[in-house]
């Protein structure tokens, strides 16, 4: 989230004008909520997913990563399929009793509307594109790994065993999208468990699916509000907590640090003025005392 010209002017003006402007809390980074709702996203239907891992294979093939099944995200595994065993078996939509004991969950970057990683990055190496993807520019990155600390979904990966490491994560196939194509994983799904489209359409589709089969789907869309909303959305026939989805605050995470950061210009002006005045007063008083001492 680089500083836009307008925001910069606003900030500069506020720091010049002092405390009054900043006392009133500025809104959380206004930049990208709109981008998240208008941009593209992916709807993942856990009820439909049969765990074939075609998406994972397509991702690796497209990005030139070594083939094979991963059991976690990695520098060369931008998505993988996690198997979550169920405590109480529930027949699977497509596999029936065969798939009752577990669910398969495709895991990747959630592409938040207002990403913690992008707000955390000191040099704006991570950015939310208006089209939806959160992308990474290694040319800017200094490897501080604050993005990894900030991400509530623990997505960004670091190349721990490289001399010239980078942060690595799913980019929602931004370059394919730019060429008018859909993400490789979505293209590969044989079960229509993955659907690519404008996020607001996907939200409507998710609601439609839940409403259409209330007996099966849990009445929740993971990603609708998590961390302020994400471009990746999940619907499921098993409660998300049971599948191990992290419980994430509803408020966009950048707002938490902005509440402190937004006070800085006011603090600088107020403290700077106070110290200057105190220094001047004390100096003057000492000078007066010195004169009086001399007179006596």
């Amino acid at each position, binding site marked *: 989230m680089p500083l836009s010209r307008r925001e910069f002017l606003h900030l500069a003006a506020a720091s010049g004008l002092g405390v009054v402007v900043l006392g009133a809390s500025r809104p959380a980074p206004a930049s990208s909520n709109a981008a998240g709702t208008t941009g593209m996203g992916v709807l993942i239907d856990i009820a439909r997913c049969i765990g074939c891992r075609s998406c994972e294979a397509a991702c690796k093939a497209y990005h030139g990563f070594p083939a094979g099944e991963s059991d976690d995200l990695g520098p060369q595994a931008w998505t993988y399929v996690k198997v979550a065993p169920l405590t109480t078996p529930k027949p699977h939509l497509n596999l029936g009793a065969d798939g009752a004991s577990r669910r398969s969950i495709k895991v990747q970057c959630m592409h938040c509307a207002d990403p913690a990683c992008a707000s955390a990055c000191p040099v704006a190496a991570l950015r939310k594109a208006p089209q939806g993807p959160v992308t990474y520019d290694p040319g800017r990155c200094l490897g501080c790994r604050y993005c990894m600390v900030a991400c509530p979904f*623990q997505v960004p990966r670091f190349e721990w065993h490289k001399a010239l490491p980078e*942060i690595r994560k799913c980019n929602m196939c931004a370059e394919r999208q730019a060429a008018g194509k859909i993400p490789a994983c979505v293209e590969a799904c044989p079960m229509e468990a993955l659907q690519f489209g404008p996020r607001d359409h996907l939200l409507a589709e998710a609601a439609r699916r839940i409403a259409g089969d209330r007996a099966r789907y849990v009445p929740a869309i993971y990603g609708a509000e998590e961390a302020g909303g994400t471009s990746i959305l999940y619907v499921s026939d098993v409660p998300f907590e049971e599948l191990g989805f992290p419980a994430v605050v509803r408020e966009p995470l950048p707002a938490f640090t902005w509440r*402190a950061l937004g006070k800085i210009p006011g603090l600088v002006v107020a403290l700077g003025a106070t*110290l200057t005045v105190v220094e001047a007063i004390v100096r003057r008083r000492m000078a007066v005392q010195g004169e009086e001492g001399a007179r006596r």
Partner: protein
Amino acid sequence: MRMPRLRMRRSGVALWLLVLGGAAAALARYIWGLGAVTNLSDRFPWGLWIGFDVMSGVALAAGGFTIAATVHIFKLERYHGLLRPAALTGFLGYLLVIAALLIDLGRPWNIWHPLVMWNSHSVMFEVAWCVMLYTLVLALEFGQVVLHRLRLWTLLRITRLALPPLVIAGVLLSTLHQSSLGSLFLIAPGKLHPLWYTPWLPALFFISAVAVGLSVVTLEAILAARAFRHPLELRQLVDLSRATIVVLSLYLGMKVIDLAVRGVWPHVLASGVEDAMFLIELGAGVALPLVLLSLNHFSRSPTGLAVTSALVVGGVVLNRLNVAITGMLAGSRAAYVPAWTEVLITLAIVAGGLLVYRWIMEHLPIMDPHAAPEGPAARWSASP
């Protein structure tokens, strides 16, 4: 006279061995990556180096701005003698932090990028600017000592005029920097344990930094007087410890109120690792020194002051380690114990700092700021 010199030399050898060992480990890190020498992982990307070398290091360097503000802004001239040691600790501390960052950053060749690539929504951006600007301020403040040593009196007199604004800038930057290290963790409400996660984190970091800054200056004055056989101006340190009591009480009060307001008291009495660490931090690092400092006979002896200062230092270091490591483990669903090479590099950075400190103490007029141009005059009053 011979014995101490010999001991010095032997400790010097040990320090140099640590520095060499750390350099070898750092070399391995640059060749094979951070994974070769650390136990850091994707779920736990920050460890000992951020918790101790950077976060504790910055806090311990806070004596620089507290003493500078006391003398140059509030004009409490009786603390003048502490100015140079404090500026030295601050400057050296920040240089060590930068050294640690050059090892910890994954892509250190881009360390200058925040200068030209801005993201004002990032706390790390603020941290980066504070480190750069305040190191510059400390260099200019410390440059006074060098000018003194080089006997450039005219230049010294001219630059002295720039000191008050420079000191004010230093206080501002330190306030921002100390607090921003706490703000860093505000973005991780789901990861940092509720004992430490509070919107007050920036304020608590700042206040504890002031307390530990005073304690480091006190401890340093006592140890340096012993090691370099300078007379100790005890009354000054006793007065300073009164300020420490005030700041430390404020810190304790804020912590207690914060726990009460957020209703996390039950956590304190639970039996997890976090709760134990929190109790040690607050008990041994804040409450105990407060009690000891209010015992009159104890807080008026060099040993008593050294012990309480050491406790405060330990408490603040533990607080930073708890925020960066202990409190983050469970929420990150991670396990982390620093690798021996991480510990070695940390020790090497501390050892390097001690070697530079000793060299500067022996070659620059740190302990005697009132020295006349002709040479060091004996203006140090003996302890009362």
